[in-house]
């Protein structure tokens, strides 16, 4: 078998009409959102099944601080969105982000609020523990801790992503860090939406 010479790859300067790696961050976050939804859907169905499996479900009052935490998380979504829009408004060709640097303050504020939310969730755990409700006390408390811990871990992941984006925003101009910010903001908003869902589930079930 005499193989013919492979045709040389054609030089192809990329054009704006073709798919670009810049869109990848956004796609990646949407896929992450999909898979996180699937995980929490599995846990929700597990909770429904477990509640019906035996008469040992124990209802308890959710710590009130959860509602304050909710407000903190939703506010942090607002500050991040404000920041994203401010930074997006700076023309791409601008050498540095100096005109939009005040937009970064929103990212800092979001980071602080995010940390406050995580701290508030830990306080909620301590309040439940003070009532004698631990992970293994009842299936309802078990699901409460599992839901809040897994959500909290994802929020911490979001904080790490925001720190990464912040570093890139401070170091370089151009579209790349803005796309990263857009993707991180999308993830952060989803964290808020997911928490609202979990709060409704927890408030109605446990």
């Amino acid at each position: 078998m005499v193989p013919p010479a492979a045709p040389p790859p054609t030089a192809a300067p990329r054009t704006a009409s073709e798919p670009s790696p810049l869109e990848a961050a956004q796609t990646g976050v949407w896929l992450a959102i999909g898979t996180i939804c699937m995980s929490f859907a599995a846990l929700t169905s597990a909770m429904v099944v477990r509640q019906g499996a035996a008469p040992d479900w124990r209802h308890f009052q959710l710590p009130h601080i959860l509602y304050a935490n909710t407000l903190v998380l939703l506010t942090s979504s607002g500050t991040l969105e404000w920041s994203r829009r401010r930074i997006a408004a700076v023309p791409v060709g601008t050498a540095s982000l100096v005109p939009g640097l005040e937009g970064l303050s929103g990212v800092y504020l979001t980071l602080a609020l995010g940390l406050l939310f995580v701290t508030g969730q830990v306080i909620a755990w301590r309040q439940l523990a003070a009532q004698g409700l631990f992970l293994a006390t009842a299936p309802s408390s078990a699901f409460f801790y599992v839901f809040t811990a897994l959500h909290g871990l994802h929020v911490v992941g979001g904080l790490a992503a925001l720190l990464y984006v912040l570093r890139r925003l401070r170091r370089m101009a151009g579209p790349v860090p803005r796309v990263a910010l857009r993707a991180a903001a999308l993830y952060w908003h989803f964290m808020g939406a997911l928490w609202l869902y979990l709060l409704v589930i927890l408030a109605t079930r446990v």
Partner: protein
Amino acid sequence: MTQTTAHHHAPPRGFLRTHVFSLDHKVIGKQYLDLALVAVCTGMALSWLMRLHLAWPETPIPGLGKLAPTGAAGGVITPEYYLQLMTMHGTIMVFFVLTTAPFAGFGNYFLPIQVGAEDMAFPRINMMSFWVTLVAFLVLIASFFVGDGPALSGWTAYAPLSAVGKDAGPGQGVGQTLWAVSITLFCVAQLLGSLNFITTTLDLRTKGMSLARMPFSTWAWFITSVIGLIAFAVLMPACILLILDRVAGTSFFIPAGLVISDRLQPHAGGSPLLWQHLFWFFGHPEVYIAILPGFGIVSHILPVFARKPLLGPRVMIGCLIAIAFLSYTVWGHHMFLSGMNPFSATLFSVPTLVITIPATIVTLLWIGTIYGAKLRFTTPALFCLGFVSVFVSGGISGFFLAQPSIDTYLHGTYFVVGHFHFVMGVAAMFGIFAATYFWAPKMFGRMMSETLGKWHFWLTFIGVYCVFMPMHYLGLAGNVRRYSAFTDDYLKPMIPLHQFITIAALFTGAAQLIFLFNLVRTRLRGPKAPSNPWEATTLEWSTTSPPPFDNFGGRPPVVHHGPNEYGATGAGGDYVMQASLPSAGPA
């Protein structure tokens, strides 16, 4: 968007960055394949131990007594140790071979090249995915060396056996916890990998590479990624709940009043069925995660050697999508005997039969493709034909098992063992072999020996039929599975057949030494491979063997043709490459 011509990351410098902690998808792909090779050797060695014990249950296995003084004192395997070997064999093979090699390994290496990309969308996540997989494997293997050995609850880790702890038997202490941690880590790795595959396919296709022009293997990896993204997202939280039941005292899967080893378990109210639902919601799609890449590989390779376009390319892709969708509706057929509502069994039986329709269509498309073709009987082509053969053989027995009434009799027997080894294990392995022989020239820049390859194929093909076909008869005769020996009961007359299977398994395993020798020899000093030795059309054959760091030497290809243009009048022969100019082939 002008900056996109720059590569994601600079060429690596130094040995560690180039070969160990590499961001290059090609190196990562080979790392996955090497891991799978270590895993498959381990898994096969475990199966040999099981087979030897089944055939000659009272004969000591030389050396085993020293390796496992508790589980095999004097070299004779205890029933518990047999279950531990079985659990590790199944877990290693399903997760670290059948998922790792055809999907993560070959997918990592070839998906970006086949879509004309320079790398995966997220190279760092890609690297992390491999290293987490490796850690998961090491954690699993570590269970051989702790406490009383690895878990014994099977690769499905049914609760409450898997959930209650060391009271449940050897390996159910630390070993089972390590199993659950390993699989949780594996889920994380596969989720990261799937996310990368999908994003790369959606966003990094080169100019002209429309979805319709994607190679069938890329389609299969893409669809498999979608399945994986959903399936592993369910298994991961299930494993977390299992770990909590084991170490934190929760009762997700452990019912009340459970007495094990004369001890009342301190749990209440959990549902063992809940674990089965969560596990099989992952578990059945996992079967397709293992086999769909094989579908793609065979659909990719067969036309190359048939020198004909694949019959019904759009129907093929439609069938793959249909199989992926239906794979999420059939998990209950693994639970016909679980105490599930009998009406549910009927509900799950119907889609189980329906899913055979696209699978049958796919098979007919392969057969239609080679019908009337002047087939080039190369080693990869032989393994593709072998894939079709074992997939059909194993698939047909699936029709029986899909009926709840028949499954009631067969479910706990060797019929099921023969069925899933053919349709999922051996078929997927044949896909891996076909892919290895086909793509080795591209990956290593060297040709594998065809003579050794054909010896490997025929010995393996005959061997696997000798191993797994008799298991169907054993099952019909009522030979139960998971038993470590059949010495003093009605199963005794079946021992000669077990001895035949064991000899065949050892023979088939020995035949794999030919493959190993061929592979090592090729990597070290095989004859140099040209860029397109098989006269194939897809983009990986448009670049050098092996490809440069950025795959196309800084010149991303423009695609003008589909992947299926064989038998046409092209500039270079009876095929038109995807990157050929439009004038090179039929409009």
